[in-house]
C-alpha cells in the first residue's frame, strides 16, 4: 500500500499536458502526489481505488486520467464515425452528479480543454436523453439506475464500445445494499462491451479496502484479481466533544429534549451549524423545539427525505449561499456534497456507528488542513457511553463500515431481464459475465438457471405460465424477450429502491360551513401505515408544523393547521440504524473497565457505580442476565449489546423456548443495548433449578428449528418479501400506461407471500427473502455470533428488585409495536369493549 501525504516533487508534474501545467501555475498550485500517482497508474492500464479524506482533491484526481487522455486525443471532428462515451462517472445521488458537473466544468473551462461533460439523471428531459444517445458527451455523469437503463438498450454496445474509464464516486456507499449489487452487474456488462475498460474508485476510509479493490475488477475462479490502492492519509483530526450539561440526562427515549437550550447556545456561537439526527421524527421534534426557544429568530431550517422536493431544494440553495444559521437534517445530507461554510456539526442521538459519525463530521469544513468541530448530544444514559465509544474510535481511526454482502437474487433477476431487453443472450455466457462481478463470484450455475426461470415464467414448480413467458429460449439457443411490452415494463420498474406506500400531505382550510376546502400547499409524503393509526382530529408533527389530521381524500392525506403544542410525533418505520458491532464491543469494554469510564459525566458514572453495588457490571466477554419480580410479573433482562434487530429476534426465539419450558412468557421489549422478557412464572427460580438452565436456553440450536418454526408464522418477513418481489419484477411498482406509485401496487404482496409459502416454500424469491432477513430485519448473523461468544460465559443475578442498568429498557415497555399472535389479543380486547358496552359497562375482566 502507498501512503501519500506530501505534495509531489516538481519533476513528476511534467508528465501533464501543457494546458494543465499552465492552469496549475496560474493558480499557484501544484498537482498533489496522489493525483499524479493515480494518473500514472491509469496510464499503465491499472484500475485503482483512491482512499482520501474530504478536501484532498479526490474528484480532480478521479477525472485527471480522463481529462488528460481526451485532451491528447482532441475534439472529435464533426462527421467522424460514432465514438461513444469516453468516461462514465457514477454517483449514489442525483444531486452529486449535478454538483460534480458544476465543479468539473470550472477547471475544464479555465484550461480550455476540448472535453464535453453532461449529466443524465431521472430529471434529465426526454429530448436531451435522446440527443445524448445520438451524440454522446465525452464524460457522462450518472446514477446506477440510469446505467442499468442505458445497458438494457439495444444501442448499448455501440454506445459503450469505446468506454475507457468508469469513475465511481463515494464507492464505500455505492457498493452497499442491492443498489451496489445491481451496479456490480452493470459493471460486468460494461467490461464485456468495452474491453479496454479501467475503473477508478473514490472512497472515504473503510474497514477493509480489499473488498472494494476486488469489487472494482473482474473476478475469476482461476486467480484473485483486485485493483491497486492509493491511500491519502492526513487531514486534521476533528475536535469532537460530548455535550456537557447541568441538566439530568434521561434514562430512556431518543428526544434529547433536555439538551435543547445548550444546543441553541452552541448554534448562536457558530456561523453555520449542521444538526444531524437518526430519524425523521427526531428531526421534526428537534426543529420544533429549537424554534420554541428561538428568541433571536435565527434562520434555522429543516431537511429530510420526506419533505417536498421543492422545499428541500430551497433549503439546499439557502445553505450553499450561507443564508442559514442551522439546518436540522437526517441522512439525506449524509454524502459528500459541499454545503457552504459549515463550522459546527451537532449530532443529536448516538451515531450508532463510528464510520457514520466520521462521515457526518467530515461535512463541517471541506478544507483538509483545518480541524472540524463537532458536538455529540446523547439522548439517554446508554447513549452517553455509546457517544464516548464513537469519540474514542474517531481518534483511533477505527472503522466499522458494513461489508458488501452476497449478491441478492432478486437483483440478479432484474438484471437478467434487462440484459434480455438489450439483446438476445446465451445463458452460459451471461452466467460467466455475472460471476465476474464480485458479489456474485460464488453464484452456482443452478441458482442462475432458477433466476432465469423466475424471469421467464415466475419460476414455479407448477408450470402453467409457459404460454405467458416474458423471455423465451428460441431455436438458436438464445433467450429473448417475448414482446415489446416486456421491455417497457422493465424500463418503468428498474432500480432497487422500493417505495414504501406513501401518501402526499396537503394543507387545507375549513370554510365557514366547516367543510374542507381544496387545493392547499403540498408538504411532502408520509407512510400510509402511519396514517392508518390516526383518527381525524389527531395532531402530528411534519415539515416543522403541528398538523391536524382531517382525513384521506383520493390519494392524499388532508391536514389543517393545528393550534396544539403537544403533537403526536410521527413514528416512521425504518430509518433506525442498529448499533454497530464495533461500537457495541466498545460499550461492553467500557462497562467492564473502570479506567475507560473515567471520561464519562458524573451522573452516568454514579449510575454505573450503583449498578456495581446492587448487581454487577459484566466483563466484556460475559453476558449478564438479571431476573427480578415487579408487580405481578417476573422479569429477565439480558444485556447483550447487539443492536435492536438482533435483540428482537432473540426475544421472539426466547419467548418460544420459555413457553415450551412452561414459564408463561407474556412479552418482551428490545433496545440497542438490552432485552427484557416478562413472564407469569419466576424465571430466576427456574434457572436456579436448571429447569431449564441458562446454557440450554441460550444454546445456538435456537437458530435451527425454533427459528424456522417462528419464521413460518411470522409477519415480519412480509415487508422483506414485498421488496424482493418488486425488485425481481414479480410485482410491478408501475405498469405501462398507468404510472402507479407504491401505494397502488396492484396486488397485495402480503397475500401473495402467504399463498406462495403455503404452496411452494422453496421458491427462489422466498429464498431471497430469507437471505435478506438474515442480514437485515432479523440480523440473524449477528445473533449467531453472539450466541457463540457467550457460550459458557453467562452470569445470572437473581435480584429482589429492578437494577439501575435495567431501568432504560423497562421504560421502553409499552412503546413497542405488536407482532403475530399479539394481534389477535388486541382484537379480543376490542371485541370485549363491545361486550362491556352490551353489559352496560359492567363487563367482567378476563
Amino acid at each position: 500500500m502507498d501512503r501519500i501525504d506530501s505534495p509531489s516533487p516538481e519533476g513528476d508534474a511534467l508528465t501533464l499536458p501543457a494546458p494543465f501545467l499552465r492552469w496549475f501555475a496560474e493558480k499557484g498550485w501544484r498537482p498533489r502526489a496522489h493525483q499524479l500517482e493515480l494518473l500514472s497508474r491509469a496510464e499503465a492500464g491499472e484500475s485503482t481505488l483512491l482512499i482520501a479524506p474530504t478536501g484532498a482533491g479526490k474528484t480532480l484526481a478521479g477525472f485527471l486520467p480522463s481529462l488528460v487522455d481526451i485532451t491528447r486525443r482532441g475534439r472529435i471532428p464533426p462527421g467522424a464515425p460514432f465514438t461513444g462515451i469516453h468516461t462514465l462517472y457514477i454517483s449514489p445521488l442525483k444531486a452529486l452528479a449535478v454538483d460534480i458537473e458544476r465543479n468539473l466544468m470550472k477547471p475544464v473551462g479555465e484550461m480550455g480543454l476540448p472535453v464535453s461533460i453532461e449529466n443524465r439523471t431521472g430529471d434529465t428531459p426526454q429530448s436531451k436523453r435522446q440527443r445524448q444517445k445520438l451524440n454522446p458527451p465525452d464524460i457522462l455523469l450518472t446514477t446506477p439506475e440510469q446505467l442499468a437503463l442505458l445497458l438494457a438498450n439495444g444501442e448499448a454496445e455501440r454506445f459503450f464500445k469505446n468506454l475507457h474509464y468508469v469513475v465511481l464516486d463515494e464507492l464505500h456507499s455505492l457498493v452497499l445494499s442491492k443498489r451496489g449489487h445491481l451496479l456490480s452487474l452493470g459493471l460486468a456488462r460494461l467490461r464485456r462491451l468495452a474491453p479496454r475498460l479501467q475503473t477508478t474508485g473514490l472512497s472515504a476510509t473503510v474497514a477493509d479496502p480489499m473488498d472494494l479493490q476486488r469489487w472494482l475488477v473482474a473476478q475469476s475462479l482461476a486467480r484473485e484479481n483486485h485493483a491497486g490502492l492509493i491511500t491519502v492519509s492526513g487531514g486534521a483530526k476533528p475536535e469532537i466533544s460530548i455535550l456537557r450539561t447541568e441538566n439530568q440526562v434521561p434514562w430512556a427515549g431518543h428526544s434529547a429534549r433536555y439538551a435543547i437550550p445548550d444546543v441553541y447556545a452552541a448554534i448562536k456561537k457558530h456561523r453555520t451549524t449542521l444538526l444531524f439526527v437518526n430519524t425523521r421524527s427526531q428531526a421534526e421534534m428537534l426543529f420544533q423545539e429549537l424554534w420554541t426557544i428561538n428568541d433571536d429568530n435565527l434562520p434555522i431550517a429543516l431537511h429530510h427525505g420526506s419533505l417536498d422536493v421543492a422545499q428541500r431544494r430551497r433549503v439546499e440553495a439557502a445553505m450553499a449561499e450561507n443564508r442559514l444559521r442551522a439546518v436540522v437534517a437526517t441522512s439525506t445530507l449524509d454524502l459528500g456534497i459541499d454545503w457552504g461554510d459549515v463550522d459546527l456539526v451537532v449530532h443529536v442521538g448516538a451515531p450508532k456507528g463510528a464510520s457514520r459519525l466520521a462521515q457526518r463530521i467530515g461535512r463541517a469544513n471541506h478544507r483538509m488542513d483545518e480541524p472540524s468541530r463537532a458536538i455529540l448530544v446523547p439522548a439517554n444514559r446508554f447513549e452517553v457511553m455509546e457517544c464516548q465509544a464513537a469519540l474514542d474510535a474517531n481518534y483511533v481511526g477505527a472503522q466499522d463500515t458494513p461489508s458488501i454482502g452476497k449478491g441478492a437474487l432478486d437483483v440478479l433477476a432484474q438484471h437478467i431481464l434487462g440484459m434480455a431487453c438489450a439483446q438476445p443472450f446465451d445463458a452460459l455466457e451471461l452466467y460467466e459475465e455475472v460471476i465476474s462481478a464480485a458479489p456474485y463470484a460464488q453464484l452456482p450455475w443452478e441458482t442462475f438457471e432458477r433466476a432465469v426461470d423466475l424471469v421467464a415464467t415466475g419460476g414455479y414448480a407448477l408450470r402453467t405460465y409457459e404460454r405467458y413467458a416474458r423471455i423465451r429460449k428460441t431455436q438458436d439457443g438464445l433467450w429473448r424477450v417475448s414482446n415489446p411490452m416486456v421491455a417497457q415494463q422493465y424500463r418503468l420498474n428498474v432500480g432497487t429502491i422500493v417505495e414504501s406506500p406513501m401518501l402526499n400531505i396537503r394543507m387545507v382550510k375549513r370554510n365557514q360551513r366547516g367543510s374542507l376546502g381544496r387545493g392547499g400547499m403540498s408538504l411532502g409524503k408520509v407512510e400510509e401505515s402511519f396514517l392508518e393509526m390516526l383518527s381525524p382530529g389527531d395532531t402530528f408533527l411534519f415539515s416543522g408544523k403541528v398538523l391536524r389530521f382531517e382525513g384521506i381524500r383520493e390519494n392524499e392525506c388532508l391536514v389543517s393547521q393545528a393550534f396544539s403544542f403537544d403533537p403526536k410525533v410521527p413514528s416512521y418505520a425504518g430509518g433506525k440504524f442498529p448499533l454497530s458491532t464495533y461500537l457495541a464491543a466498545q460499550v461492553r469494554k467500557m462497562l467492564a473497565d473502570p479506567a475507560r469510564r473515567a471520561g464519562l459525566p458524573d451522573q452516568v458514572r454514579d449510575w454505573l457505580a450503583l449498578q456495581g453495588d446492587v448487581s454487577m457490571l459484566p466483563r466484556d466477554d460475559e453476558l449478564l442476565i438479571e431476573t427480578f419480580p415487579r408487580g405481578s410479573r417476573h422479569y429477565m433482562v439480558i444485556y447483550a449489546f447487539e443492536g435492536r434487530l438482533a435483540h428482537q429476534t432473540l426475544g421472539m426465539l426466547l419467548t418460544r423456548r420459555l413457553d415450551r419450558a412452561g414459564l408463561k412468557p407474556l412479552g418482551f421489549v428490545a433496545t440497542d443495548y438490552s432485552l427484557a422478557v416478562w413472564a407469569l412464572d419466576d424465571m430466576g427460580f427456574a434457572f436456579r433449578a436448571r429447569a431449564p438452565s441458562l446454557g440450554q436456553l441460550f444454546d445456538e440450536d435456537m437458530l435451527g428449528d425454533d427459528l424456522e418454526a417462528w419464521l413460518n408464522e411470522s409477519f415480519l418477513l412480509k415487508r422483506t418479501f414485498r421488496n424482493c418481489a418488486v425488485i425481481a419484477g414479480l410485482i410491478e411498482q408501475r405498469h405501462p400506461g398507468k404510472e402507479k406509485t407504491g401505494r397502488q401496487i396492484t396486488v397485495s404482496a402480503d397475500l401473495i407471500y402467504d399463498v406462495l409459502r403455503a404452496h411452494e416454500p422453496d421458491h427462489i424469491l422466498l429464498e431471497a427473502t430469507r437471505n435478506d432477513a438474515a442480514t437485515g430485519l432479523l440480523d440473524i448473523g449477528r445473533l449467531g455470533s453472539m450466541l457463540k461468544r457467550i457460550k459458557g460465559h453467562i452470569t445470572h443475578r437473581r435480584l429482589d428488585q429492578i437494577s439501575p442498568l435495567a431501568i432504560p429498557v423497562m421504560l421502553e415497555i409499552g412503546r413497542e409495536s405488536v407482532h403475530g399472535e399479539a394481534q389477535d389479543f388486541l382484537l379480543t380486547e376490542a371485541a370485549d369493549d363491545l361486550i362491556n358496552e352490551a353489559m352496560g359497562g359492567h363487563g367482567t375482566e378476563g
Partner: protein
Amino acid sequence: MTMHRLIYATSPAVNSSLHARTSINGVAAVCDPLGGLYLPESRALVVSDLHLEKGSAFARRGMMLPPYDTLATLRILEAVIARHDPATVISLGDNFHDRKGSAAMPDTFREMITAMACGREWIWINGNHDPDGAQGLPGASMDELRHAGLVFRHEPSRRDGIGEIAGHLHPSATVRRRERSVRRACFATDGKRLVMPAFGVTTGGLDLRHREMSGLFDRQQLVAHMLGRDRIYSVRFANLLG
C-alpha cells in the same frame, strides 16, 4: 391472515370456531371466520369476490404471480361448505378475476367445483370483473337474486339497500389500541344490509372509513365482524381505532 385461513380451513379443529350471529332485516345469519355467511333458515351459504384465476390473469399481462391462488381459495370454500352443508351456495360476483378466467381455468379446479356443487343449488351472481357469467360450470348465472326475504347482488345499491347482501367493496376494518393497530377483512352490517368480505386469498381490503363506503350504512348501528384466526371479532364502528 390468509395464511391462517389456509391452515385453519384444513385443520381438524375447524368445528370449534366462534361464529358471530347477526340478522339482516330480520333474517338470521351467521358470520363464519372463514369468510362465508350462512343463513340457517334457508340453508344458504353466501360467499363473495372469490377472484378465481387472479394469478393467471396477471400472468397474461406479464406479472407472474403464483399460480396457486385458485386452489387455495377453493380449499377454503370446500371447508366452509363442509361445515354448513348448505342447500344453496350463492357466490356474489367477481367469482373470476376477469372475463377470460372461467373459460381458462384448468380442469382440476373445474372438477373441484363440480364436486362441491353436487346435491346443491349453486348461484353465480355476475360481478364487474366477470359480467358474462361462469362458463362450463354447474349452477345458474344471474345479475341479481331475490331469495328468502333478501336480495343478493354484487355491487351494493345506493338507492335500495334494505335487506341486501352484497360484495364488491372488500370491506376491512382497523382496530387500534394503545398505539397499535390491526387490520382485518370484515363483514359490515348495520342490521339492515350487509357487505361481505372478499373470499379470494389474494384479494385485498378497503377500509370501512373509505369514502366509497360512506352513505351505505347507519354508522350508529354499524358493526364490523372481523375475521380473526379462528373466530369472529365483532367491533362497533365507533370503537374501531379506539
